[in-house]
């Protein structure tokens, strides 16, 4: 079920009405039912993958809870400090084993299923296995939201094991946390310690909050329908075009537009998800903080898909570096290379994170290369960070506005190069595009061709106007202004003119298919 569908709006409106009508202690039940319906409608049957993943995480959580209680009881009857320490270490070791087992099984299953989508059809074609059918793929091999709920479940188990949150005893409440419908298909990744409090507290109806949530939803739909889906017409034509052979200038424009499309599509989805959740008075973590204002790649990834980056940092990077293996590597590296050895575990951890991030995003060699590319850039920039100051001083570079813009442009260029890899249909097409960008730019020919690649002259003008509006909002937010509050506090006539204006723009200028379907969200396929 897509957010931009009549079915979703019906589900949203009915669950919203019931949510504020039932006794406050039962509000979570409405969300649980709505989440179940949303998910079952999306997968078309029993959600086997979600049930298995959730049951495993739920059982691990209970085991970890019992283990912590048993540890407490065992320690309370001991007086000897050394004996206490030994008992505690024993319990901790057993809990860690359970966490590692679930982590490896969860992440391993996720990565296997991603590659199964490629391997199984191949085996079918070879006649080695019987045809499995689409239902098998959508419900068992690659069910809706598997990339999101698997990582959320792993995070829950690790957090309970680390005593950062209590375990959930009620299985239905646990499944609500895991499959909360605004976040199940594309995130944001929720932490149990934060979301559970939101789901458990009582919520009072507030008209302004409801309006604010709807406002954010509409803004997200605007980004998706007016910007992302319009760009898709051009980008889809150029990258999936018949035979390729476009001038480098057309490819350059297509990649720049793709950078905007990906951002508008994913951040638009997030606006819709957070907006829906806001109407239920449940706040979800922000996933974007205007990433294209970043002055370095590290900063870019702190502002883009924030909850995924935090997940990998907390559960992969730090877990690896602070593990027994990580410590051994660090010790040996420091002995062997006294000056630079301290960076070794950080470099290995960063590369591991980026390889997994690449594999999480896609199953082709291009995504692996994309992960390695970012991993290498991160490592080089972090190791050389101390040198930057020295170089800037030697070159007499002052960090004014000009330098800030240069640093932003440098970040865009790095992202540009990476996005060629993930948007190209294959590595050979990516190679062809890089070649055309450097050796076959043909600017004049590109200008003549630009309006015949899917977007007309007026389409470009409309796109430019929509992007300018988006930029103006982003600049205000970057300067610390709360645009949504400004709008809410503006005179009623102006406010409602803005609301109607955006809705009209959406209806008139949004890109809809023949049956008024929108293009699928890009991150849903990751």
């Amino acid at each position, binding site marked *: 079920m897509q957010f931009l569908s009549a079915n979703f709006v019906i589900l949203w409106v009915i669950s919203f009405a019931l949510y504020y009508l039932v006794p406050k202690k039962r509000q979570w039940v409405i969300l649980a039912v709505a989440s179940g319906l949303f998910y079952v409608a999306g997968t078309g049957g029993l959600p086997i993958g979600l049930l298995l993943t959730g049951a495993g995480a739920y059982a691990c959580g209970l085991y970890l809870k019992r283990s912590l209680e048993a540890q407490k009881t065992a320690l309370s009857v001991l007086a000897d400090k050394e004996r206490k320490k030994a008992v505690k270490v024993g319990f901790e070791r057993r809990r860690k084993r359970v966490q590692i087992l679930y982590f490896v099984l969860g992440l391993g299953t996720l990565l296997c299923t991603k590659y199964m989508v490629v391997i199984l059809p191949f085996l079918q074609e070879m006649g080695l296995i019987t045809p499995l059918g689409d239902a098998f793929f959508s419900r068992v091999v690659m069910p809706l939201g598997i990339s999101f709920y698997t990582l959320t479940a792993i995070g829950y188990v690790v957090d309970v094991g680390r005593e950062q949150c209590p375990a959930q005893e009620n299985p239905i409440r646990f499944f609500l946390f895991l499959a909360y419908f605004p976040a199940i298909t594309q995130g944001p990744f929720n932490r149990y310690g934060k979301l559970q409090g939101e789901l458990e507290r009582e919520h009072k109806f507030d008209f302004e909050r409801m309006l604010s949530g709807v406002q954010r939803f509409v803004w997200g739909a605007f980004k998706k329908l007016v910007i992302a889906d319009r760009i898709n017409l051009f980008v889809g034509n150029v990258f999936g075009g018949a035979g390729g052979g476009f001038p480098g200038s057309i490819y350059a424009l297509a990649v720049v537009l793709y950078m905007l499309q990906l951002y508008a599509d994913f951040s638009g989805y997030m606006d819709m998800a957070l907006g829906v959740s806001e109407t239920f008075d449940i706040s979800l973590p922000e996933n974007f903080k205007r990433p294209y204002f970043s002055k370095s790649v590290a900063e870019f990834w702190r502002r883009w898909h924030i909850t995924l980056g935090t997940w990998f940092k907390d559960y992969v990077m730090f877990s690896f570096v602070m593990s027994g293996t990580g410590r051994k590597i660090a010790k040996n590296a420091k002995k062997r290379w006294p000056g630079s050895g301290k*960076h070794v575990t950080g470099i290995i951890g960063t590369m591991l994170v980026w390889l997994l991030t690449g594999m999480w995003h896609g199953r082709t060699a291009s995504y692996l290369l994309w992960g390695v590319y970012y991993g290498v850039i991160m490592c080089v920039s972090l190791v050389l960070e101390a040198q930057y100051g020295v170089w800037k001083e030697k070159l007499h570079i002052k960090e004014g506005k000009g330098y800030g813009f240069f640093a932003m442009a440098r970040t865009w260029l790095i992202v540009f190069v990476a996005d060629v890899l993930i948007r190209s249909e294959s590595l050979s097409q990516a190679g062809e595009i890089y070649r055309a960008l450097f050796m076959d730019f043909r600017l004049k020919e590109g200008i003549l061709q630009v309006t015949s690649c899917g977007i007309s002259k007026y389409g470009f003008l409309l796109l430019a106007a929509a992007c300018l509006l988006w930029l103006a909002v982003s600049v205000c937010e970057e300067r610390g202004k709360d645009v949504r509050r400004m709008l809410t506090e503006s005179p009623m006539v102006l406010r409602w003119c803005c609301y109607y204006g955006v809705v009209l723009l959406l209806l008139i200028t949004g890109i809809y298919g023949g049956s008024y379907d929108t293009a699928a969200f890009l991150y849903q396929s990751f």
Partner: protein
Amino acid sequence: MEEKVLEILEEYCEEALSYAGDNMMEEGVIDSFTVINVVSELEDAFDIEIDAKYVVAENFRNKEAIIELVARLVEE
């Protein structure tokens, strides 16, 4: 102890000394690479083991939080 922690921070992340907020990790004042180096130095300096469960934004929100964490682990 406090002086030693500040000395380590000064070596790896001078900005942390003047930072007055309470979200150093998420605001990018201290990146994950630096956190790893600071943790390693703190472990060597105070003969403690800082498990991954302690390396969270809450314990690295500012210099005071880091000092608190080290004091707690030294006591244990």
